[in-house]
């Protein structure tokens, strides 16, 4: 049983991000990159599965800034192998579709039984990576997963549906899952261990398959900017009845409710 964990590096949001002079990207010079926190959940779930079933855990990431540290940390936590896909420009933002297109051939070759990744990322808030990847590979997929249990040739997943409801379903392997949360909080990797692992090296570098030419869905970015302040707030005063009356009026005037 081989479990692949796909990891993404994101700008550390505790830093103050700035827009680059071209105006189409953030200034990547000074920013520190950290692992997507949801991918950390995926890694934790994979490690728990490894502990219960003896599966092999392989973490896979593109050659993005500060990625080595994230990969070594994953090894220190217990991942068996770490793979870095090289040859992809890491100096600009990459759309989720592009990312999925680069990952797909590697995932296919790796003969993975289960592919886990974070349900979303700060630059993929609608959580497309797992779904698009599954689509490219023709594999079953589930998103917002909060529980994973391995069977022989299937996997039992618990998926959150929102509104406090969730669903349990059995999916054929191999499958791609977008993890919302692991069964327990991601574990701690002691620095001494990370340093030993780092010294030992052991990141496998694999040349990425060059993605097909920008597909029809590719996005071209015209301008990146800090959200501009628009509109204003209006404080409604008066008795509850008056306030309600006023709200209804506003909604009507914007065409949001009829009548």
């Amino acid at each position, binding site marked *: 049983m081989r479990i692949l964990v796909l990891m993404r590096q994101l700008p550390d949001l505790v830093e103050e991000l700035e827009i680059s002079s071209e105006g189409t990207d953030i200034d990547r010079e000074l920013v520190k990159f950290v692992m997507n926190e949801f991918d950390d959940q995926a890694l934790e779930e994979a490690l728990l599965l490894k502990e219960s079933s003896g599966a092999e855990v392989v973490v896979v990431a593109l050659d993005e800034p500060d990625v080595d540290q994230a990969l070594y940390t994953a090894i220190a936590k*217990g991942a068996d192998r770490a793979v870095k896909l090289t040859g992809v420009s890491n100096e600009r933002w990459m759309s989720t579709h592009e990312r999925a297109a680069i990952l797909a051939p590697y995932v296919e070759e790796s003969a993975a039984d289960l592919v886990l990744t974070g349900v979303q990322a700060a630059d993929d808030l609608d959580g497309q990576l797992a779904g698009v990847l599954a689509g490219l590979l023709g594999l079953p997929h589930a998103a917002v997963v909060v529980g994973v249990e391995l069977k022989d040739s299937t996997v039992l997943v618990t998926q959150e549906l929102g509104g406090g409801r969730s669903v349990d379903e059995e999916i054929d392997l191999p499958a791609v899952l977008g993890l919302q949360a692991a069964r327990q909080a991601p574990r701690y990797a*002691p620095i*001494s261990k990370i*340093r030993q692992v780092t010294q030992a090296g052991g990141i496998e570098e694999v040349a990425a398959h060059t993605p097909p030419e920008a597909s029809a869905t590719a996005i071209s970015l015209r301008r990146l900017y800090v959200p501009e302040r628009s509109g204003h707030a209006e404080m409604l005063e008066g008795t509850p009845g008056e306030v309600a009356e006023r709200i209804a009026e506003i909604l009507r005037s914007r065409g949001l409710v009829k009548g």
Partner: protein
Amino acid sequence: MVLRIAIGGAVVLIGLALGGARLWWLARLIRSGSPAPGRTKGALRRSWAELAEVLGQRKLLRRRQSGIPHALTFWGFIILLFTVIEAFGDVFSSKRFAIPGIGHSPVLGFLEDLFAVVVLLAVISFVVIRLVDSPARRERRSRFYGSHTGAAWVTLTLIALVMITLLGYRAAQTNTGDFPYGSWAFASHAIGGWLAPLGRGTNSVIETTLLLCNVAVIMGFLVFVTYSKHLHIFLAPMNVGLSRRPRALGALEVTDGGSGARTIEQLSWKHLLDFATCTECGRCQAACPAWNTNKPLSPKLLVMGLRDHLFTSAPRLLAAGHGASRGSALTSSNGASSAEGKVVGQSRGSSDAPAAPALVPDVISPDVIWACTTCGACVEQCPVDIEHVDTIVDIRRGLVNDGKMEASVQQVLENIAQQGNSFGKSGRMRARWVRELGFPVKDARKEPVRYLWFVGDFASFDERILELSRTLAHVLHDADVDFGLLYEGERNAGNDVRRIGEEGLFEMLVEHNMSTLNGAQFESIFTTDPHSLNTLRNEYPAYGLDKPVLHYSQLLQELLESTAITVKPLGTRVTYHDPCYLARHNRITEAPRKVLHALGCELVEMPRHGLNTFCCGAGGGRIWMSDDPALGERPSENRIREAVALGVDTFVVACPKDFAMYSDAVKTTGHEPDLRVVDLVELVATALETATLAAVSGS
């Protein structure tokens, strides 16, 4: 005579065999521990410690009530060694045996009698102390809570019996003509006076019986000692001699690269010796902030628990040989670390010995280990120099290396690893508070400065406290002090990280800070935070730091004394809280007091002050752990109540963490209206303002 020799000989041989076997067993057990390097270095310092702490009973005498009787008993036993030799001489040699070289000097006779009586009186005072502070009645508040009180009573009885039989046989001797001392042996003669009417024959029987009883009680006592907490009679001088000097505070001990102790095998032999030496006196427990606020940790009970575990593990430890092999049997529930075990954290070797129980949780509950603030009150108090903090942190290291800790602590460690500060804020924001000063502050990485200000996380990032940083900057600026910062080159100094047990992260922080410090030009460092001060001063030198490290209270003291700043007396009545890491760990108690004096404040001391200060509860990473409110008050609240009882309205602190802790504690105890928490530098600033105002209005 023959009978005397036969009975006496049998008693002595049995005693020596039993006691000797036990001591030999103990020696092998303790030697099975892991290495503890550097324990014999500094012979002079060690000899001095023996003189002061063993012969001089320095630490015991800090608690007068029990210290004086203990010192008298100790000195009494040394004098009474002469009576022991004489008694053995009497039994095995001749009835008028005299110690060669000393003979039967009347002074010796007097001293022997005097101390026999003094020790009896001391025993009575011990009885009183134990009855007054009875654990049955006072429960947790008794320092004997959890100690083996039965053994203590047996010991007191045996000591009393030694003295009674001694005086008895000596008294009888005065009537049989065997007594070699004249009237200087006042007690023997006085009791002899009462025994005289019984006649010479009876007195002769009494003499022989009590003499043999005396030898038997002494031998019995010696054997009992080796099987009880009174072992300290033999082990305390060793433990004191092998302790860290000048004291096991300040720098932490790191053995075996900081991989931590998961099993008893992995604790160093010095710690095993500590456990065997503990007298169960409870001085540590009485001073411990955790125990005093209902936490599960008592340093005494921890040491006793580990000793019991050591003794029950003896078969396994001794089977493994004389410390040659150290079965490490990593009992980790964390599959990842056992999988990585081959590569990492295994330097203590492994063997096929039966699996050792994990110290946590099999022997000690994790709550106990995490409750410690590393305040050092236990180490400071312990009369036999046990090193509790080193043991606790070594056990924590094992837990942290297995990823077992509270989620909030894990978060803080990750923040510090990622951003270099516990707040998880961008490291580049560290010196942002400087912007609002209205004057530039030098960057010590770019231009030389006299003082390098190592600001620390709280004083850089905590909203309430960076206001105090600005006040200090203004005071220094107005006094024309040449100072600078490392700006974003500074990272958390690592004091608390190390005490949480994250040795690897500590090393990473030191390496980073040292590389920044090496690139800066300065004459000395001063810190806001006593915790940073502690590690910079005591631990960074091992990594190459060779500059003096001061606390800002010391700098303020210098400025006031050199009249670089002049102030107008405030006349406020205040009390001052000594931070553990300033006072106990670094012996800095005078500087803040001198500042207060120079400010014209009337200082009212709390009962627990100076080296005996009571911890605010923030140290050792506790500030990031949750307190179970069901357990009752927090250490900081306990402290606020102590201050309120003095009737002062100002509570002065000299540590950013104290400021945070006590600002909260006055609120939660409802004392916010009547007790003001102020930092030392705020008082200085106020006095300055007064001075400036006075100057302005005077002109």
